[in-house]
């Protein structure tokens, strides 16, 4: 029969310990170094000035074109400046659009990354929950196993007790013989005399004596008998 299981035998291996330690260290490193970067990017995306830069460039481009095309004829032209105004507006609108797109992309990138991290966390949580559920089930199964074993043991003990008790009660009751060993003793009414019967807990031997004490009981039970026909 094996001994009780030792908790120490179920400790994690050195590799498992190292793996967990490295993973925790990496996680802390990530939180320390990279998480602030993403938060900085989040703030930068809120205050992004790409649109201003692009507007400045659009303005400069437009003005350079206009300045390059300046002439006496154009100065004389009554409609001077009208088409340039349209071009200027169109250029700035393009710059605004490009600037807003940059800002949007930046913010979506930040959100997507942050959400990705949160999603990883959720996946991790689900895995942890699964592991927890598995452990709960294992524990419950183990408890149930112990409970069943206890019940079975109680049943065996009860059965043995009843069987032995019945056997004890059947013991004794032998016909008393006279000194010749052949003639049964009889009472005044002519009934054959018998030795007293055993009780549930105490058997009686062939002579009607109570079998008491550990040694006598062991000898009486034939528990250590090796005779296959007994």
């Amino acid at each position: 029969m094996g001994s009780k299981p030792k908790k120490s035998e179920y400790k994690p291996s050195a590799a498992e310990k190292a793996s967990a330690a490295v993973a925790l260290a990496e996680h802390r490193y990530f939180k320390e170094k990279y998480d602030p970067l993403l938060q900085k990017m989040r703030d930068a995306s809120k205050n992004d000035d790409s649109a201003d830069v692009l507007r400045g460039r659009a303005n400069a481009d437009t003005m350079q074109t206009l300045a390059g095309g300046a002439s006496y004829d154009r100065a004389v032209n009554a409609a001077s400046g009208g088409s340039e105004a349209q071009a200027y507006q169109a250029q700035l609108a393009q710059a605004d659009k490009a600037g807003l797109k940059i800002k949007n992309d930046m913010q979506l990138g930040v959100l997507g990354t942050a959400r990705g991290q949160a999603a990883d966390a959720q996946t991790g949580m689900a895995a942890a929950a699964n592991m927890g559920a598995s452990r709960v089930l294992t524990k419950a199964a183990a408890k149930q196993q112990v409970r069943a074993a206890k019940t079975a043991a109680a049943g065996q003990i009860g059965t043995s007790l009843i069987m032995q008790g019945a056997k004890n009660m059947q013991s004794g009751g032998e016909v008393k013989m006279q000194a010749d060993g052949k003639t049964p003793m009889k009472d005044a009414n002519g009934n054959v005399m018998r030795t007293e019967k055993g009780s549930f807990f105490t058997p009686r031997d062939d002579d009607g004596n109570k079998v008491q004490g550990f040694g006598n009981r062991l000898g009486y039970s034939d528990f250590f008998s090796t005779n296959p026909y007994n």
Partner: protein
Amino acid sequence: MSTTALPSVSDPDKVYADITRNEYLDYKKNYGEFEQELLDRAENDTTLIDEAKVNATGAQGLMSGIADRNADRYGVPLTPAQRQQQRRGLRRQNTLGYAQSVNDARIAQKELNQAVIGDLINIGQGVNRSSLGQLQGAAQGATQRKNAYDQARAASKAQTISTVGGLASAAIFAFAF
């Protein structure tokens, strides 16, 4: 943090659960408001249209000044009537430019807002997928626990019945009822 010393992990299960829970709480704290702002902006942003209106107003004054300076630079003797005509032309062109620019801005704004909404929906779908997966896992765990409990209860009942039956049977045989 020291980069050489490794932390000791006595209960990886708990550490794992703590980290994942904190990651979610960190997200809500650091990016929850940011996400809400982006969602609101994707639906209500009008910056391009607003800028287009401002640009048109600015362009009117700017181009008028340029025309005046060019006239001075080249010594163009514009009569008041010519100057008035020039300004009227500039205003007309600018107004047309305003209309075009604002309309273009509306289209561009709609395009960009929809692109943001589309990207947000993609991100949201990923989150939703993860959440459903997580919920599925939780539901499976709950079902497994329930099944295991039912099985254990049935097994326990069977064991009890078997034990009682064994005892009764032993009693019947022993006492020859």
